[in-house]
């Protein structure tokens, strides 16, 4: 069954959009109604982080989905999923800054002062510099900034072919995201391993396609010689 562009745009997109807001809505609800664990601030940090990774995986799954099924309308969801990955990543970073760094500062000059701003910047900076798993998570998110900024139709037009090249940075972000998760856990790497496998499969698909692609070209050329 072929799906019209109208259905995709006016029915499916709003559904996916609302579904993507599910996790953050749930967190807000659970936080306000005492349904998180005894350490709710840590739950918010962890959940926003894992959802960043999930949305990165979904974004990376669009191309393989199109290639494997021929359902090209899927492309219409890629930008939204990518932006949600950035959204959850930003929430994750913001939670860390507020709950982990800001909440641990000295407030000798009071909370609302320039010293607080300076101390917070120093505290985040030192953490990003000193701790490899924070460094790598920070890098993963930073690399997503230009992608989010150039996600508009206007930017796609303006950048032309360069846009595609630039947006391959998402491969790096997803990989760093998995490493960030891996380096965070104490002993049980099963969950990071799952994401490592998923991201490896999604990126591996692209490598495989490219190789296969070249193969086709060579075989096409062969008879002409």
């Amino acid at each position: 069954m072929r799906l019209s562009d109208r259905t995709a745009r006016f029915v499916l997109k709003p559904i996916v959009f609302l579904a993507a807001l599910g996790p953050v809505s749930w967190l807000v609800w659970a936080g306000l109604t005492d349904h998180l664990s005894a350490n709710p601030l840590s739950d918010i940090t962890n959940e926003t982080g894992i959802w960043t990774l999930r949305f990165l995986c979904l974004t990376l799954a669009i191309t393989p989905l199109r290639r494997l099924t021929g359902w090209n309308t899927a492309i219409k969801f890629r930008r939204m999923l990518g932006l949600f990955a950035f959204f959850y990543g930003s929430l994750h970073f913001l939670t860390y800054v507020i709950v982990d760094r800001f909440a641990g500062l000295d407030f000798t000059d009071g909370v609302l002062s320039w010293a607080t701003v300076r101390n917070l910047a120093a505290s985040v900076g030192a953490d990003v510099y000193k701790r490899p798993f924070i460094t790598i998570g920070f890098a993963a998110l930073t690399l997503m900034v230009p992608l989010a900024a150039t996600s508009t139709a206007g930017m796609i037009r303006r950048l032309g072919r360069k846009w595609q090249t630039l947006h391959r940075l998402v491969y790096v972000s997803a990989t760093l995201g998995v490493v960030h998760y891996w380096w965070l856990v104490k002993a049980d790497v099963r969950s990071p391993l799952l994401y490592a496998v998923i991201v490896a499969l999604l990126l591996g698909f692209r490598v495989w396609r490219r190789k296969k692609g070249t193969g086709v070209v060579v075989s096409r050329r062969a008879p002409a010689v």
Partner: protein
Amino acid sequence: MRAAGTAGAVAALAAGGLAGSEAWLEAQEAAHGRKLDGVQKSALSTSAKPNSWKEITTYNNYYEFGTNKEDPAANARNFKTEPWTVTVDGECNKKAAWHLEDILKGQTLEDRIYRHRCVEAWSMVIPWVGFPLADFIKKCEPTSKAKFVEFTTLYDPKQMPGTRSRVLSWPYVEGLRMDEAMHPLTILVVGLYGEVLPNQNGAPLRLAVPWKYGFKHAKSLVKIRFVEKQPMNTWQLQASNEYGFYANVNPTVDHPRWSQATERVIGGGFFRKKTEMFNGYGDQVAKLYAGMDLKKNY
């Protein structure tokens, strides 16, 4: 159809994620146990307000019952703690298999409200019920060769689903230097809030060493062994650059992956607390480590 499939996949993933999150909803506090008799107050208790029964019994690191904080509350529910035997072995005169009742016979129990600091930089205040480990050690008559005490947790894959995967090297082993083990603050715990210790907290018998990180507090003890050489503890075996033998709470020695300077006080509001040297028990225990480089011996 395919479109519906994608939307379905997104929805399924969302639902799956939420179902995972809902594990918290299932983290039910422990049922209340038998009230312990004749429990005395102790001068060694902190005056800080203890965490709630719910917080203490739903937020647990007890990998034998799963690696998520809410796992032990769900998976330890039917754990069998009676009968319970503790084997005493090694460099001592009284090697024996002790029934828990015999260990407790004639032993005065005390309320010990202790600050509890996890190596993951969160903390609670916990009203343990227990007695000095020193009392029991004296009954075992360790010889002059006994320089360390090694503690082993039960390893029972049938009852402990977490041990069916090799997340850690089982059984869980911890150790203390003899003088640490004999210190009046070091206790064997059998209760919480005046009641029998809930399973997820290490029933029926666990250690509490309040100036050390939580992972030193071995749970569900089945073996106590007096040894000459420093035992290899499980977390050190797992990652010796991150977890040492001493594991004294120390705000100046960071975990390689996170800072130990501050801690998230469970149920303690938004701001983090400054972590204190030896978890605030320095007056009592700092002398045990006089002259030692605590940056090396972390």
